[in-house]
């Protein structure tokens, strides 16, 4: 078995454990923003989309890279933006001054 695979698997398993440890402390109130934040983090697949664009040299490659870039771009930017919007709602209370500012954006 090649060593880089072993390294990759090791990192995968350790990251899973870190994930379990960190995420099990998140309170129920924040579970929706948590999932949405996790969603934005898997948007890191945009790095993969860029790398396949960098090695594409024919039409099939370009089309696949293009679709992957659209998907990943949507995922990462939309994910962070919507998480931010939600979390501002949870911040409103302690700062009543900020309340009016966020109100226009928050109420639809």
């Amino acid at each position, binding site marked *: 078995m090649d060593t880089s695979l072993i390294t990759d698997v090791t990192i995968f398993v350790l990251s899973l454990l870190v994930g379990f440890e*960190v995420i099990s402390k998140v309170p129920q109130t924040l579970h929706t923003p948590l999932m949405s*934040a996790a*969603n934005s983090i898997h948007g890191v*697949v945009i790095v993969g989309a860029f790398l396949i664009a960098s090695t594409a040299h024919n039409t099939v490659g370009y089309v696949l890279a293009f679709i992957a*870039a659209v998907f990943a771009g949507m995922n990462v930017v939309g994910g962070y933006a*919507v998480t931010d919007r939600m979390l501002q709602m949870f911040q409103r209370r302690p700062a009543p001054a900020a309340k009016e500012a966020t109100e226009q954006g928050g109420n639809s």
Partner: protein
Amino acid sequence: MGAVTASIMFHFVSPSYAFEDGITLILLLAATCFVIGLHLMNAPPTANHGNRLSAVGMAVAVAATLALIAHDGTITTTGWLMLAVGGVLGSGIGLYLARSVEMTAMPQLVSLFNAVGGGAAALVAIADFVRLAGIAGAPTIAARISVTSVLDVVIGAVTLSGSIVAAGKLQGFIPSNPIVIPGGRFINLVLALALCAGTGYILSGANSDITLIGIAIAALVMGVIMVMPIGGADMPVVISLLNAFTGTAVAMAGFVINSLGLIIAGALVGASGSILTKLMADAMNRSILNIVAGGFGTGDTASVIGAGATGQVRSVGADDVAIQLAYAQKVIIVPGYGLAAAHAQHSVKELADLLEKRGVEVSYAIHPVAGRMPGHMNVLLAEAEVPYEELKTMEEINPEFPRADVALVIGANDVTNPAARRPGNAVSGMPILDVDKAKSIIVIKRSMGYGYAGIDNELYTDPKTGMFFADAQAGLRAIIAAVKTLVGVD
């Protein structure tokens, strides 16, 4: 160093290892930001910093990748164009959706982001495999690449189609009741066998990109067949499960292109999705397998009108409710999805404000599956500016019910049914809110219709319970008006 042996880059040998090592370290920095960002989400006041830190990490990762691509110089002008136009177009769509989505539609949006994340991960493996297979006279693709590619494509494609079906069910353009596909199990079996055969063929050393694409198509069909029979009430579990799938698919994509950033981020999301899946399944007292097998979560609440009114039901009017609430010391509000469906969050908040002005202590009892995704009800109430300190979890609030003068149930059903404490019925063993232990109970509900479990709610025939038959929004408006006229507000 790992990146040099990466399949995606092995055809050029960079003279400057130092540069690539630097990029890897920067990606490690990004991964650190993700972990600390998630850690900061353990309390509402710091959560927003956490998300922003995570976004900074993401920006750093993207910038480092662009630098790496430019440094390598293998990208063509068309490649740059695809990357830039695709990235900008996707970002624009994502930003528009994120800004315009209503909080009630959040589960659909999260599903959609799961879909595109899984889809992108599958495409990364397909593009890499197609490229490797297309190199004339190339040696057999290494097993570590082909195994992870197949896993990535299968999980990614199932997530893509499954999440789109889930989003469709939540949005309502696919009926939310369980749709049993005739011969679904048989089709799934055939597809699974085809998948195994295709995988075997690829692992036997055939550089066949057509086979991989066939596997992707089979997995897409499986995703549809998997989610179609699952009912609306089970959506919190399904979304969490698909979230875990997406994370795993992204991690697999990381294996394929040997990117530590993708592996770490994918594993974090996989962990998060798995935890939430387990929490949701436990909150419904059902196994994940049982939910995926489908057939339990039926359609929407109002479908069975007037059914099963076996016991004596006491009906109350807005004035009675207003008096009871206004002269209570402690009121616990129990919101369910019916509240969100009626867009009555702001009315609840208005009523709570009125009561609090009179010195009534108001808190909210949030069942883990109140809503269509984990924590959904909390976000809906936060949008209506209910302070998060008043939102209590089931464990926190259950001991408080005996001290509550009034429990006001709005749009929640099965999660309040005391029958769950007895064995032998559809909700047996499900953790419930102890609403029946309050001194008196008011339920705002349109009819005596069943909840998702399709059984009578014994709470409604409890002598302490008054039923106020109204739509959540209209009922709350009537109560607010009655409180104002009968009791008066300063």
